[in-house]
């Protein structure tokens, strides 16, 4: 059981095999506490959702897992390794998709994958086959020789998703991976995540799209203002929010204390609108 602010969560034992273990993480940016005493674990073979409103601290947490940011307090372990100290070992086994596809705009996709393949020291033949199959699945083959700067948001996203998968990572960290993807590609990616999980791999899925989290995640951590509000399966969370049978959206709003404010906003909107037209004062 993990507790934070007297809220109880999941029921796995401390000795269970895990991929990521974060203990009492704190990260400050000046006066702002982006992550506040965050504790959670990600098991092998699970899709772990990081849910929270904008600015909740999800991306900061993800960056600490990757070793891109140092926690001010607390400890983080990935595959029982220290992501900053053993950065190379950790990154060899991790695939990462960021919220914004910050990939080299002045390179073609071909050059990008050559670069990634070289730095990951991948087998050329095996990687080429895998890359072809991924490009084909995401219908991205026509863009293989295009400059990344010329690609649409969705196609850039496909390229960074593919770049995160070609080395067969044990842990996938995906920050809003479905942004910009068309329905077909989104479905393909969801299937890939399921397959990854079935093979025993772990996924950390950071999102604020609740339907996706509900559909894909085995367990969900709800973060708000850098604090862990709740952690568990959708069912566990519904109990915690006293909203049994409710969908994740209602649970989320209740747990983040946003349900009342949403009601007020809706009420205010109703008053200011009449017959679908904005009423002027």
């Amino acid at each position, binding site marked *: 059981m993990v507790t934070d602010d007297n809220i109880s969560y999941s029921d796995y034992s401390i000795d269970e095999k895990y991929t990521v273990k974060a203990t009492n993480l704190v990260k400050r940016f000046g006066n702002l506490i982006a992550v506040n005493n965050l504790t959670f674990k990600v098991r092998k073979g699970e899709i772990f959702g990081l849910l929270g409103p904008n600015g909740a601290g999800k991306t900061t947490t993800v960056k600490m897992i990757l070793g891109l940011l140092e926690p001010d307090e607390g400890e983080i372990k990935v595959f029982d390794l220290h992501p*900053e100290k053993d950065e190379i070992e950790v990154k060899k086994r991790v695939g990462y998709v*960021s919220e914004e596809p910050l990939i080299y705009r*002045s390179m073609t996709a071909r050059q990008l994958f050559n670069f990634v393949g070289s730095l990951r*020291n991948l087998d*050329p033949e095996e*990687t080429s086959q895998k890359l072809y199959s991924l490009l084909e699945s995401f219908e991205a083959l026509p863009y*293989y020789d295009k400059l990344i700067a010329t690609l649409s948001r969705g196609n850039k996203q496909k390229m*960074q998703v593919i770049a995160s998968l070609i080395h067969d990572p044990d842990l996938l960290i995906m920050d809003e991976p479905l942004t910009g993807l068309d329905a077909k590609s989104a479905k393909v990616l969801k299937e890939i995540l399921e397959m990854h999980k079935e093979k025993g791999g772990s996924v950390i899925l950071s999102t604020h799209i609740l339907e996706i989290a509900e559909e894909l995640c085995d367990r969900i951590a709800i973060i708000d203002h850098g604090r862990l509000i709740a952690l568990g399966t959708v069912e566990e969370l519904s109990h915690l929010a006293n909203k049994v049978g409710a969908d994740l959206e209602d649970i989320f709003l209740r747990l983040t204390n946003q349900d009342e404010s949403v009601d007020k906003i809706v009420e205010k909107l109703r008053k200011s609108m009449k017959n679908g037209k904005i009423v002027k004062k």
Partner: protein
Amino acid sequence: MVKLLKSKGMKMSNLLSLYKLSKSVYRESILYSQLESSGSNYTKLLERIGKNPKIISSQPKVMKFLTSFYIIFLTIIPVRAITSINSILHNNFPSHTQIPQQWIVLIGSILNSSFLLLELFVLIIFSIMMTWGLFSPQIYSWPQTLPLRKKDIEKLSLLTFIRGINVQLLFMILVLPLGIAIGIFINITLYSPKTTFLLIFVSLIISIITSFFNLGVVVFISKKMSILMEEKEDNSKRSSIIKAIITLLYLISSMTLMYFIQIAIDKIPNFFTKVLLSSEQSLLFNNILSFIPFPFSGGYLITILATNHSLYFSPITILGSIIGLFLFTILTYILLKYSVSILLKTSRTKSSFKKEKEKENLQETSVQVNVTSPLKAFIKRDLSIISRDLQLIMVFVMPIIIPIFAIITDIEDNVLLNEYGLTASFISIIFYVALTTYMIITGITNIESGGETITSSIPIKTRDQIKSKLPYFFSTILLAYLIWNLFFINSELFPKMITFSLIYLPAIPLAGISGFFFKIFLFGKLKYKYVVEEIKTEHRLAKHFVSFLFVLIVLLLYIGLSFLGYWALGIGEIVYSILLIFVFNYMFPK
């Protein structure tokens, strides 16, 4: 914007409202051109704008100020031309009997014409980078969704351009008549009130016509530039190189022009006294040139009116300048009409930026991942990025150009005539080398921040990153350091200069690499390692300044050591090299 729409009851037909609306479109176009030309700085720029959105508007403000400043500065040319003529003719110094009158007319008119021409160049140099974004149809995609008529959107593109160039236009129109008024004031006794009025009035007319002509030229070039910058679909190396060459030529010509303007202004009186043509030859030139609409007819007309009380002008020259000005007016009208039609069409034009879907890839794509060593992969990536990034290309070209300009200035000012001048000039070169070395350091570290998503999840060794950058880092700084020696190949100073350069040669890469390490130490120190990217961004400016100082101090220390004797310099270089190897292994372990 919404307030504006509301206040106009969703009707935006009058020009004033559209002009107000153009503020947002202008801002959008500036942001667009800043981002499109930012290259490897794209992410950093977005980050900076996020922190301080004022950055978007500060750049055009600076450019407007610079253009206005240079236009005012250029007025010195006609003012000095007129006062020099008056000084030659009325103070008889140097004896004007030795200078043919037609030569004075020729030089005076060429100087006045050069003012009109340089005004255009200054406008192009400082405005194009800010105006080409206005010609991208993308910036009108949002106004098109607003309840605006098509004609209003067309007018909007015209007004947005005027907003972008309003201050410059005002200065261009007013500066010449004001300059002429100052010129008259200096020699007030020579001009009757009638001549004064006529001269100022005619210069105002010339100024207005020239300003609108310049405007037309800027529209034309901006449009071409916009097409060039947007052509990303063609990602071949050839197209990248063409873009790079054009930008390079643009920057080099800008720098050269600014440099020569300053030299020329200092030497205006000398142009009159160094007579190169006879009176007959000069007259022939005057008669021909005065017919050329731009920039000569205006230049001749100003000279005629400013000096007709004391100089003889042939009737052909007078007639030529009047006909030339008339033709210039017609030419300006045609150009302006064409420019307005370009501007009106801008919002309607489809972007040349073709979406990838438009072009079907019918051929089978061969997917083959080529794996090389990390070192080679980094070099390939860096070269690929640099070859397509104009800002980065400039980072590597400017260090070579800047010392050349410095040495030309010294040659021009006769600084290099003695041992003392030679040493002073060499130290100034060292200063420029320090400055440009730091420019390169910043440029190559910027490459790393361009692909954050990819690099943040890849097992990268900082050691490999650093090693991959050393070949082109060293070759550029050494080339920048040595190239100016070429100016002395045929000079008796050459053996001295080249010996000087070779003695200090090892100090250049040593200072450069230590500056590189020092920057990483300040910006990229993490708990367990150092990274090339700028992670610790607090006190950014101070850190950059300290890192630059570090390079400079190392270089100056070497020069100081050489005063003890070259043996001391040699020992210093060996000891420092060993120290740097130690630092390299400590900061970036295998």
